[in-house]
């Protein structure tokens, strides 16, 4: 069943008008009837009192001269008053002189003691004394029915009912007029909105039929439509511009619906794949992705669709000739004003050559690293032999050698020692890129203490003062962290000024990473060498003042980057240097970074 809320406005108007009219008339009618019945009682009281007095007065002679006939004639005049049911004239002793009855005989009850007008449920009873020269000579009683009141109420009731009927009919007839005034403009507006929402044709306009609020509503609606229309056209133009741009680009371009189905591939796609748009639209593209890449590709795309995160994926895509070429595919979600994804726009770049070069480079790098590792490993044995046998020569043939021979042997020993250090560092460097990742937290304070005890002799010799703050736990291999800290502190001890070195180690949390710093008061570094110093065998000081292989910072950089961190230096010549390196705070990002750096 439909409620009032749901019925058309035209019917609502009719109901409202009829309800208002009915309510007003009912209240008015009830008020009139109530007022009238009150007024009428007063009127009736006065009227009956006057009537009784006249009858009583006219009956005095009949009563005085005991003339029932005359009295009956007098009472007969009451016939003109149809609501008088009966009347009786009593003598003083209560006997009846004359009676009148509207219909047949009606009993005259004993006269009332009280002279008054009484309203009873049956009717009005009037007891009127009959006086002659101020003396009572009898009593007149009138009986008046209430039909008149009932008649009046019936009359008013039927009048109200009649007016009600007539006004309802009029309201009903008026409603057709009112429809033209209110309901028709609304219906028109409804038709216009329905038409717009069904056809999407924003050039539709609602017709203005009045200058009232509805007219204003129509105006505003039309303005809104005009606004939407112009925006719609703008959107179309922009879409065309986008299409044109996409078609004219050498790259492959696509757009996707928020649900992930591809709704646009540019011409380059069709040319590359040799397939029609119909074949590859929505999820049809999965047919040209390499089977080995497909599963991960779909998973990654779905994850982006679910989260709205940018999509980046490298995969092999089949060309029209059946050959697969590496592509880097990216897609970004476009958000509307409410932050909801409205569409995805993506591009697919052919990175096949780059990928092949990278692969070749990686292989070459691997080979080189393998070579360096084996070489330094294999070199250790002959170098050890050089050291051992030059020492034996120095001991056993000390007396045989002359001063020059002694000096040359010294050069040989020193060269062998330096060569051993160099090979060890090289080995450490190659290991830094291949070592296992530690997934448990390591207390960096403890690691620092180990580093310091390893450097104890150098610290004592240089009379250095090393201080440090509380350091965090990090997800980093213990040996790796020690390698980094030991190298940095070692450098600080090494590149010192005239003053004893003052070194401070600290770490602060910055976003998702810990930022470690090693600060010294040494000779500092010219800013122009900030980058170079991290290269292999890059040494700024080739004189004998500062010894070293030139691999330390390269090892540090390799280790830090292995964990997804960064290493850099801030310094000015003569004002000391501060080395910084970052370590991710969470094990996961360490691992991801490790995976990242291992694949990249």
């Amino acid at each position, binding site marked *: 069943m439909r409620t009032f809320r749901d019925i058309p406005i035209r019917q609502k108007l009719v109901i409202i008008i009829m309800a208002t009219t009915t309510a007003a008339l009912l209240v008015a009618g009830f008020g009139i009837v109530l007022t009238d019945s009150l007024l009428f009682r007063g009127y009736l009281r006065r009227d009956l009192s006057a009537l009784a007095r006249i009858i009583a007065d006219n009956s*005095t*002679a*009949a009563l005085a*001269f005991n003339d029932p006939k*005359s009295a009956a004639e007098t009472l007969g005049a009451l016939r003109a008053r149809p609501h008088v049911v009966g009347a009786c004239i009593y003598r003083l*002793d209560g006997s009846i002189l004359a009676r009148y009855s509207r219909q047949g005989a009606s009993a005259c009850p004993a006269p009332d003691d009280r002279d008054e007008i009484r309203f009873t449920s049956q009717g009005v009873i009037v007891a009127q004394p009959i006086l002659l*020269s101020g*003396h009572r*000579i009898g009593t007149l009683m009138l009986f008046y029915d209430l039909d008149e009141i009932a008649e009046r109420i019936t009359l008013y009731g039927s009048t109200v009912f009649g007016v009600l009927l007539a006004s309802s009919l009029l309201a009903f007839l008026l409603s057709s007029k009112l429809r033209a005034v209110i309901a028709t403009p609304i219906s028109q507006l409804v038709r216009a909105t329905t038409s717009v929402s069904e056809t999407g044709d924003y050039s539709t306009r609602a017709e203005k039929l009045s200058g009232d609020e509805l007219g204003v509503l129509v105006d505003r609606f039309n303005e809104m439509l005009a606004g939407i229309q112009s925006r719609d056209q703008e959107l179309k133009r922009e879409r065309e511009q986008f299409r044109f741009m996409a078609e004219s680009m050498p790259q492959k371009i696509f757009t996707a619906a928020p649900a992930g189905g591809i709704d646009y591939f540019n011409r380059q796609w069709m040319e590359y794949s040799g397939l029609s748009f119909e074949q590859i639209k929505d999820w049809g593209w999965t047919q040209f992705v390499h089977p080995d890449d497909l599963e991960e590709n779909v998973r990654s795309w779905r994850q982006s669709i679910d989260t709205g995160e940018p999509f980046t994926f490298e995969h092999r895509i089949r060309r029209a000739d059946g050959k697969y070429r590496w592509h880097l595919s990216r897609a970004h979600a476009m958000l509307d004003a409410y932050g909801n994804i409205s569409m995805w726009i993506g591009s697919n770049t052919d990175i096949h050559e780059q990928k092949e070069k990278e692969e070749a480079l990686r292989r070459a790098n691997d080979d080189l690293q393998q070579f360096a590792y084996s070489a330094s490993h294999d070199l250790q044995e002959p170098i050890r032999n050089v050291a051992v046998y030059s020492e034996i020569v120095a001991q056993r043939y000390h007396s045989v050698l002359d001063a020059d021979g002694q000096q040359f042997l010294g050069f040989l020993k020193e060269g062998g020692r330096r060569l051993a250090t160099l090979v060890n560092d090289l080995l450490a460097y190659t290991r830094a890129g291949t070592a296992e990742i530690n997934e448990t937290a390591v207390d960096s304070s403890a690691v620092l203490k180990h580093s310091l005890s390893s450097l104890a002799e150098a610290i004592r010799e240089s009379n250095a003062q090393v201080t440090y703050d509380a350091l965090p736990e990090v997800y980093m291999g213990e040996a790796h962290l020690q390698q980094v800290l030991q190298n940095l502190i070692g450098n600080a001890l090494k590149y010192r000024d005239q003053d004893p070195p003052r070194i401070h180690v600290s770490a602060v949390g910055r976003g998702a990473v810990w930022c470690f710093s090693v600060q010294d008061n040494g000779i500092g570094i010219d800013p122009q060498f900030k980058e170079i110093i991290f290269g292999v065998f890059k040494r700024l000081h080739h004189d004998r003042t500062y010894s070293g292989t030139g691999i330390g910072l390269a090892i540090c950089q390799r280790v830090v980057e292995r964990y997804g961190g960064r290493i850099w230096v801030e310094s000015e010549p003569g004002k000391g240097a501060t080395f910084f390196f970052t370590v991710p705070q969470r094990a996961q990002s360490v691992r991801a970074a490790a995976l990242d750096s291992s694949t990249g």
Partner: protein
Amino acid sequence: MGGISRALPVLLACVTALMLPSRTVAQTDLEYQVKAAFLLNFAKFVEWPSSAFTDSDSPIAICILGKDPFGRAIDDLVQGEAADGRKLIVRRTSQLPAPQACQVAFVEGSTKDVAKIVNGLGRGVLTVGEGGSFLREGGIIAFVIENRRVRFDINQTAAESAALKLSSKLLSVARSIEK
């Protein structure tokens, strides 16, 4: 309450007795008791000219000329009665009264020379007699017995010439009116 008010119910109760087939002395008494009450009531339906009274306080005198058929009954009835602000009294006289002495004059039915008496009374006197002939002899109201009930006829011409105004109510209960 005046005497007539108290007496009337009793009298009217007796009227039924008049309807009995034979007349008795008691019936005659009753008849005159009714007539006495009527006589008093006449005074209340008649308007006298002021010239009929000596002054504004003078009573309305009901004079019984000659034979008195009422006895003490009428004296009891008239006790405390008044009409038009004037006291009602009863006078008995065997002679023609002086002007302004009587306002109502009753002439018993058996009286001789009624016409002479009526004429002698002059203006301003309501003359009441008995029998159908009383009006022909110049009287104003005549008691008649009809169906054993006391009723009366009126000669309005005589009333007018006596300068009396008879109430229309009185006329309405009269048996017949002569003009």
